[in-house]
C-alpha cells in the first residue's frame, strides 16, 4: 500500500517537472516554425534560435549589464531587509513612532514606483536613485510581515518571560524576533523579486548610457535601436535572475526553519 502511494507520488513529481518542460519545448517549436514559415524579420519577432545566438554573441555586454543589475538588486534588497525589519522593531517598541511614521510607509507603498522614479532621479545621483527605487518597492512587505510576526507571539510564552522578569531587550531578542522569523523570511522572499523590479524600473527611467548600465537599460537601448533579439535576450536574463533570487530565498527559508516551523516540514515527519 505504502509503496504504491510513494510510486504515485514519484510519478506526480516527475509530471510536475516534465510537463512545464514539454510546454516550453512545444511553445518554442511553434514560435520557431511560425517565424520561419511566415518569414518574419527579426526586428519584428526574432526566432528563439536567433535570441539564443544573440545571447552568446553579446554575452560580454549582457553579462556586464546583468552584474550591474544584480548588484543593485542585492544592495536594494539588503537595505529593504534592514529597513523593513528595523522599522518594524522600532514600531513594535514605540507606539508613538509607529503612529508617526506608519502612514508614510503606506503612502510610499501605494504610490506607483514608475511615477516616483523620475523624481528621485532629479534629486539623487543615478546609483542612489536606482537603489532608492529598489528599496521603496521592496521594504514594505518586509515591514508588514515583520510587524505581523512581532505581534503574533504566543501569549503564554510572553507571560512566562514576564514571570521570569525578562527585560524588553530579552523579550525582543529571545522571544519576539524568533517568533517573527518565519514571517520575516516570507517578507524577504517577496522583497527579493520586488527589489529586482524596483531596480529595473529605475534603470529604465534613468535611461542613461555608459559602462555602468544595467540589463533594463540594455532593453530600453535595444528597443530604440530596433535590436529586438538583444531585447529578448536581456529579458530572458532578467527573468532567469528573478527565478534564481526566488529559489535562493526559498532555500534560505527552508534551511532556517526546517527543524521547527510547520511551513518547512515535510508532509511525513
Amino acid at each position, binding site marked *: 500500500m505504502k509503496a504504491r502511494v510513494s510510486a504515485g507520488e514519484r510519478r506526480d513529481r516527475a509530471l510536475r517537472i516534465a510537463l512545464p518542460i514539454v510546454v516550453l519545448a512545444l511553445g518554442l517549436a511553434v514560435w520557431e516554425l511560425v517565424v520561419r514559415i511566415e518569414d518574419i524579420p527579426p526586428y519584428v519577432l526574432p526566432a528563439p534560435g536567433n535570441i539564443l545566438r544573440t545571447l552568446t554573441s553579446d554575452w560580454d555586454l549582457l553579462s556586464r549589464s546583468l552584474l550591474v543589475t544584480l548588484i543593485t538588486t542585492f544592495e536594494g534588497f539588503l537595505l529593504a531587509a534592514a529597513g523593513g525589519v528595523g522599522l518594524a522593531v522600532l514600531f513594535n517598541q514605540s507606539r508613538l513612532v509607529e503612529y508617526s511614521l506608519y502612514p508614510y510607509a503606506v503612502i510610499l507603498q501605494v504610490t506607483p514606483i514608475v511615477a516616483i522614479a523620475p523624481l528621485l532621479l532629479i534629486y539623487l545621483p543615478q546609483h542612489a536613485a536606482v537603489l532608492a527605487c529598489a528599496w521603496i518597492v521592496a521594504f514594505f512587505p518586509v515591514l508588514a510581515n515583520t510587524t505581523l510576526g512581532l505581534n503574533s507571539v*504566543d501569549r*503564554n*510564552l510572553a*507571560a*512566562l*518571560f*514576564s*514571570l*521570569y*522578569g*525578562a527585560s524588553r531587550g*530579552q523579550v525582543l531578542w*529571545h*522571544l519576539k524576533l*524568533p*517568533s517573527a*522569523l518565519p514571517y520575516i523570511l516570507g517578507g524577504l522572499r517577496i522583497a527579493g523579486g520586488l527589489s529586482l523590479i524596483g531596480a529595473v524600473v529605475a534603470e529604465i527611467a534613468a535611461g542613461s548610457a555608459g559602462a555602468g548600465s544595467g540589463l533594463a537599460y540594455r532593453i530600453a537601448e535595444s528597443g530604440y535601436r530596433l535590436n529586438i533579439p538583444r531585447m529578448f535576450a536581456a529579458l530572458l536574463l532578467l527573468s532567469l535572475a528573478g527565478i534564481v533570487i526566488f529559489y535562493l530565498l526559498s532555500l534560505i527559508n527552508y534551511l532556517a526553519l526546517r*527543524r*521547527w*516551523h510547520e511551513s518547512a*516540514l515535510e508532509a511525513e*515527519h
Partner: protein
Amino acid sequence: MPPATAFHGAPLVALRGVGKAFPNGVRALAGLDLDVRPGEFVALLGPSGCGKSTALRIVAGLSEPTEGAVEWAQAVTPVQSENRIGFVFQDPTLMPWASVFDNVALPLKLKGMGADKAAHRVEPALDRVGLRTFSRAYPRELSGGMRMRVSIARALVTEPQLLLMDEPFAALDEITRFKLNDDLLRMWQALRTTVIFVTHSVFESVYLSSRVVVMAARPGRVFAELAADAPYPRDQGFRTSPEYAAFCRRVSEALSRAMAAVGEP
C-alpha cells in the same frame, strides 16, 4: 476554617479576599481566601469558568487582583518571588525554535546565568523528567507527553518554592497522564516544593493532592476544602484502593454542591 492537614505553620502564600473583575464586567473571583503552607500539594478543583486559572495567574503575579491581596511569607521578598515561582501552562508553551536544552535553560538565561553554569542545572532537570538523551531535540520532534515533561523541567530548573500548574495534563491521554501524575509526585517529594495544581478532574485532584479546594463559579470562590489524609508515596495501588474511591466520592459530592450553588455566594 480549613481542615487540618499534615502541613502546619505560617502559609507560604495566602490569598486574602481576592476579587477580580474584568473590564467587560465579568467577576471572575470574589472574596477568595486561600492559605498554602510550605510543602503542601493543593488542588484547585472546579467547573470551567470558576476562576481557578485566574486565581493561579494572580498568585503568579501575571494578573493583578482588583480586590484583596496576595501575601507572601516573610522569607520570600517580591524580588525573590520572581525566582521562587515555576509555572506550567495547559499547553507545554515551549519555544519551537529552541532545542529541549535551550527551552529548559530559558529561566536561567533570562536571569543572566552563563551557559556553562546553566548546563549544571539543566542536565539534572532533564534527568528528573527522563529526557536527558533528548536535550538536543526540538519540541516538534517530541510527543505531547514529552513536551509537557520539558515544560515541567523548565518550571523546576530554578528549584522554585512554589510550582503553579494550570491543568497541565488535561490534553494528554490517560496512560500518559497517569505516568506524569506519578512522576510529578516523585519530583514534588524529592524537591520538597509546594504545588498549586488546577484541574477539573476529581480523580486527578484526589490522587495527587494533600488538600482539595473545591471552587464554585460566578463569581469564583472557595466552596469547600477537603484534606486528603492518605499517606505518600502514593502509587497505582492507591488508585484502586477503597479509601481513594471513598475520597473521590466525597470530593464529587462537594463539586456537585458547588455547581448547584452557582450565582448564590
